[in-house]
């Protein structure tokens, strides 16, 4: 547990010292969301109908965008070797790094999302569900993106293929997340999809770090 906190603190400290990189995915999220009405139409009915799905796609893309360097930086400066050779389990270290990343990229997204949702004329009553669904979905997305980053860690220059590897796997999260939000917009019970999102998060958080650690060990060779 000490190692977990140690890595978490180190990664957060580094993240705040490079705040430019930190802010990029969030600004991306906001800009894409502001372009959406320009591409579609400013009409209330249309925006309200497609705003939910759109917010989810934007959240998905921005959470993938940021993760390319999650392990690559550590691999390139040699600290990944030291982490892999430390007595602590690599999966625990991976989990700490993923959590650190989620704290600096996922949480701000949760804060921004309601404002964007309001601008798409989503009803205020739906906002708690939107934030709740995002809170359950973004950890899964972070784990999947971390997995993509770990798999491509030994690919020269290629963060671009992370999307190709990971996006098909995110389909269930997208389906349940958008469904929960949609149900909330129509004032219906959202428990079903929220439970499913929580189940996916548990699965991802328990198996994901193990897969990441295995991929990193191969990448280190």
């Amino acid at each position, binding site marked *: 547990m000490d190692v977990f906190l140690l890595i978490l603190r180190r990664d957060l400290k580094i993240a705040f010292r490079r705040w430019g990189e930190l802010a990029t995915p969030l600004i991306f999220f906001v800009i894409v969301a502001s372009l959406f009405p320009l591409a579609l139409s400013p009409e209330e009915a249309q925006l309200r109908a497609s705003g939910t799905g759109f917010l989810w796609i934007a959240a998905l893309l921005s959470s993938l965008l940021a993760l390319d360097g999650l392990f690559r930086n550590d691999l390139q400066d040699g600290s990944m070797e030291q982490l892999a050779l430390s007595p602590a389990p690599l999966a625990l270290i991976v989990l700490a790094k993923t959590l650190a990343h989620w704290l600096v990229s996922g949480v701000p997204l949760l804060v921004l999302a309601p404002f964007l949702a309001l601008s798409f004329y989503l009803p205020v009553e739906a906002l708690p569900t939107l934030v709740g669904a995002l809170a359950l979905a973004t950890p899964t997305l972070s784990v999947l993106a971390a*997995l993509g980053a770990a*798999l*491509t860690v*030994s*690919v*020269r220059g*290629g963060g671009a*293929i992370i999307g*190709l*590897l990971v*996006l*098909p*796997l995110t*389909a*269930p999260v997208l*389906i*349940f997340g958008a*469904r929960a939000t949609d149900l909330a917009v129509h004032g219906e019970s959202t428990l079903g999809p929220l439970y*499913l999102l929580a189940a*996916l998060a548990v699965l991802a958080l328990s*198996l994901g770090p193990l*897969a990441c650690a*295995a*991929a990193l060990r*191969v*990448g280190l*060779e």
Partner: protein
Amino acid sequence: MGLVRWFHSLASPPHFYRFARRLSPWLAVSSVVLIVAGVFGGLVLAPPDYLQGDGFRIIYVHVPSAYVGMLAYVVLAGAAAIGFVWRIKLAHAVAVSVAPVGASFTFLALVTGAIWGKPMWGTYWEWADARLVFELLLLFLFLGYMVLRAAIEDRDKADRVSAILAAVGVINVPIIHYSVEWWSTLHQGPTIARLDSPAITLDMLVPLLIVIVGFTVYFAWLVICRLQGEVLERERTARWVQQLLAERAE
């Protein structure tokens, strides 16, 4: 005991290579016979469907290719996992050889599904059909696997990294399948007919089963052909490959 030892010896590349050379003509011939017989049964002998008329005959190529695509992904993931856990090089070679074949059959399932959809739904692509959407995602999984392999230069590394991707993918396949199913039931209008007849009769079913078996044997032949090349390349410094080359040169 003898059978177990025989299976074990197959994991040794020279044994496998020799075995594959003897097996492959049999697979090729029997798959062609099965496919031709099944397709003949499907196109000529089977009665037209009472709802879809003769249009339903696309089933005899659509369902087998969809089935082989799925089978290929399971074989790919299983082989890759065996290769990763027990460090069997031949298993990794199987995974590599399966990928392009599986991708092409999944692609074929998508295309024939879309062609079938046009007369049934009036549109080539129907998002509310869970199975086509699932096939599409499966195709992406195959493509991801192939792209990842192509991006890693070191073959040994590529084997093991892509094995992890395949394992994650295969855990996800049922989740994706059920989520897409669930999602489509929410959006499916009552007018959408599913791409299979609700009451398929025996004389329709038998040709279908024959084509499915034929496609599976054909798939095995393709994989074995590719596998021979894969094994040769991986084992090129081994004595048996050098001997084989010397024999061929004579």
